């Protein structure tokens, strides 16, 4: 499996290309770049599925009780007879939309794709510390995904207790009507945990131990820093989820009574353990995006990241503080009010490092030489949408304010502003930015911009009104809002949002088309089309071979020397030796030379 040959004792590596055959190259590859692409294909497929599930949800909300047009006949009697969605199926749709988006789309995109692709390249390593473990990490996620899909075929329907699967609803088929579906949900996520966990072990070890000479901690590009911090969250939070899932599985199958009041079990215990995982989880979903966006904004502004060190400290602070805020998901649960107050305080505090990052992005842009390429557009959308999502978070951090807002559409608005407006735009930014390095061709800019603007516009039409709906009392996860007199006035708004949502989902077809078209017909990319300082662009070929670098790089400076006074170029790659830097001529003062000027 070794595809690089190193002469020990010196810094030279030769990237030899062995003939590996189709299976070892494309199926069971140990090359981090190929594994990243495998994650990309799988997670984009699940992203599409998550979007389609949302479309069906929005149909029911926008047109309650009406038959789904065109494809209504495809649904079974137990889900949507005659195309009319049943309440139980609606619950499953909502649950599965969240589950697939969080666990099978965003997490693998952030960690499986960017973690795998960028980490070795950005630190100057030939591959991950444990390449075969990496292969395992991808391939174990596939049965997990298939099991989750199988739940749709289960008798009694798929899990329908929300992606948060609160007990005792999720623990007892008598309450939910779901048995096998819930079990499959639990088993699937338990298996998926191994994928995330092995990934985290790999990333942490690689970043600590395999940085190229000169790549000190504060010369690491921000995407890798963010992925490093995120990997620690994954490492420590996922096992908590695994424990909770196992106990819930036992409640369902063996008949233990951990979370069931009838046996003196504690429903609040589920909530506490789940959210002890769940809050670090949401930072897992956003932090890598912040790293990607920092990189792209600096590059496309041709300016150093404003406050690079404070960006790193902010990442670490968010990760630390993220462990002690989980109760803000539970203000309405009946938990100890003193405990609730402490969570309120810690949640308000965690806004500070996030705000520092926002100001630093703005500081990076300020007076920059801005290039509004597609990745930059997505990155700017990330910052602005994250501001909105973060601001709504401040409201909810206050327990008295959260109590009427909890489980309303205000929360749905908040979470979609940070997960779609935040994470997904960051993912689009990353894909459009690193596409040339991954596939050797430029991502189509015209279609890219069209996709961006349509998405940005439609997305805000869908989610912004939800803030107001929540304030007016529109509860989330309900099947038919028109049943409630106090919600009937919002039905036209629900319909409008649904139509905007259909448009939003349809607009993604442009991205899908562009993605494949550019992969095969796009303009061939130069090695460093963005004139970036980081190793994956400035040093590694496009696309990089096995082993990444023909020679182990030596690093001389940080990653954000853009528009540096030391160089005539507006960028200064990390690996360029000082004597190879094109310096501007030294200005002469009058009378400097004896000849006089």
């Amino acid at each position, binding site marked *: 499996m070794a595809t690089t040959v190193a002469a020990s004792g010196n810094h030279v590596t030769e990237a030899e290309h062995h003939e590996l055959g189709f299976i070892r190259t494309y199926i069971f590859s140990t090359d981090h770049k190929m594994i990243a692409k495998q994650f990309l294909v799988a997670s984009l497929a699940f992203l599409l599925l998550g979007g389609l599930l949302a479309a069906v949800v929005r149909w029911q909300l926008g047109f309650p009780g009406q038959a789904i047009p065109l494809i209504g006949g495809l649904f079974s009697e137990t889900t949507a007879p005659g195309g009319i969605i049943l309440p139980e199926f609606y619950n499953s749709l909502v649950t599965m939309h969240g589950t697939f988006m969080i666990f099978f789309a965003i997490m693998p995109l952030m960690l499986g794709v960017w973690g795998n692709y960028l980490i070795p390249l950005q630190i100057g390593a030939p591959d991950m510390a444990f390449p075969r473990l990496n292969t395992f990490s991808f391939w174990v996620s596939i049965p997990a995904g298939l099991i989750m899909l199988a739940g749709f075929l289960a008798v009694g329907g798929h899990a329908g207790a929300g992606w948060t699967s609160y007990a005792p609803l999720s623990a007892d088929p008598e309450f939910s009507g779901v048995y096998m579906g819930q079990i499959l949900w639990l088993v699937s996520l338990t298996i998926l945990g191994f994928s995330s966990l092995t990934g985290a072990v790999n990333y942490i070890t690689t970043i600590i131990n395999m940085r190229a000479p000169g790549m000190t901690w504060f010369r690491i590009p921000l995407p890798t820093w963010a992925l490093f911090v995120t990997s620690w969250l994954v490492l*420590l939070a996922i096992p*908590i989820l695994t424990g909770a899932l196992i106990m819930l599985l036992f409640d369902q199958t063996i008949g233990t009574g951990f979370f069931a009041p009838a046996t003196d079990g504690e429903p*609040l215990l589920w909530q*506490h*353990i789940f959210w002890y995982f769940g809050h670090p989880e949401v930072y897992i979903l956003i932090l890598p995006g912040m790293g990607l966006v920092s990189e792209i904004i600096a590059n496309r502004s041709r300016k150093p990241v404003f406050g690079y060190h404070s960006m790193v400290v902010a990442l670490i602070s968010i990760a630390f503080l993220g462990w002690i805020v989980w109760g803000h998901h539970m203000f309405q649960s009946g938990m100890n009010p*003193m405990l609730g107050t402490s969570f309120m305080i810690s949640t308000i505090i965690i806004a500070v490092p996030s705000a520092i990052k926002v100001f630093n992005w703005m500081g990076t842009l300020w007076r920059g030489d801005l290039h509004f390429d597609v990745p930059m557009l997505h990155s700017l959308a990330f910052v602005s949408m994250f501001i909105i999502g973060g601001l709504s978070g401040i409201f909810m951090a206050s327990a008295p304010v959260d109590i009427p807002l909890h489980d309303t559409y205000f929360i749905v608005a908040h979470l979609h502003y940070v997960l779609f407006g935040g994470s997904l735009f960051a993912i689009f930014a990353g894909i459009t930015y690193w596409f040339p390095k991954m596939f050797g061709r430029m991502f189509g800019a015209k279609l890219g911009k069209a996709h961006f603007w349509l998405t940005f516009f439609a997305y805000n039409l869908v989610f912004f009104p939800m803030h107001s709906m929540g304030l007016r009392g529109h509860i989330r996860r309900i099947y038919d809002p028109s049943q409630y007199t106090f919600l009937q006035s919002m039905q036209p708004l629900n319909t409008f949002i649904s139509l905007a949502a259909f448009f939003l989902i349809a607009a993604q077809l442009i991205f899908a088309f562009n993605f494949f078209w550019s992969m095969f017909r796009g303009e061939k990319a130069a090695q460093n089309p963005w004139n970036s300082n980081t190793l994956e662009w400035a040093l590694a070929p496009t696309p990089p071979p096995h082993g990444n670098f023909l020679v182990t790089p030596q690093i001389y400076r940080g990653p954000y020397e853009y528009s540096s006074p030391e160089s005539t170029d507006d960028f200064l790659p990390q690996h360029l030796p000082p004597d190879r830097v094109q310096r501007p001529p030294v200005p002469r003062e009058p009378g400097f030379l004896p000849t006089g000027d």
Partner: protein
Amino acid sequence: MTTETQTHEEHHDPPYMLIFLVLLVMTLAEVGYAFLPLPKFWLALGLCVMAIWKAVLVALYYMHLRSEPRRLWILVAAPMPLVVILIAAVITEF
């Protein structure tokens, strides 16, 4: 290979048998202590202290943390508060 970390110093084996004996004695002490007629609080506290002591001995000597670089100690110790936070916070519910 841990021998590499000690190339510049005398290579002494940690006192494995001594630690083994200490662990045995402490296990017996724990079992004895558990049945003393003390208030529940002191029983629990004493037993926890003894258990953690044994665990630390295993970590330091059998898992060689004692001879590992300081950075590894910090890496291993850093997540330990998370164990306490979950349990302590949720106990306040009851």
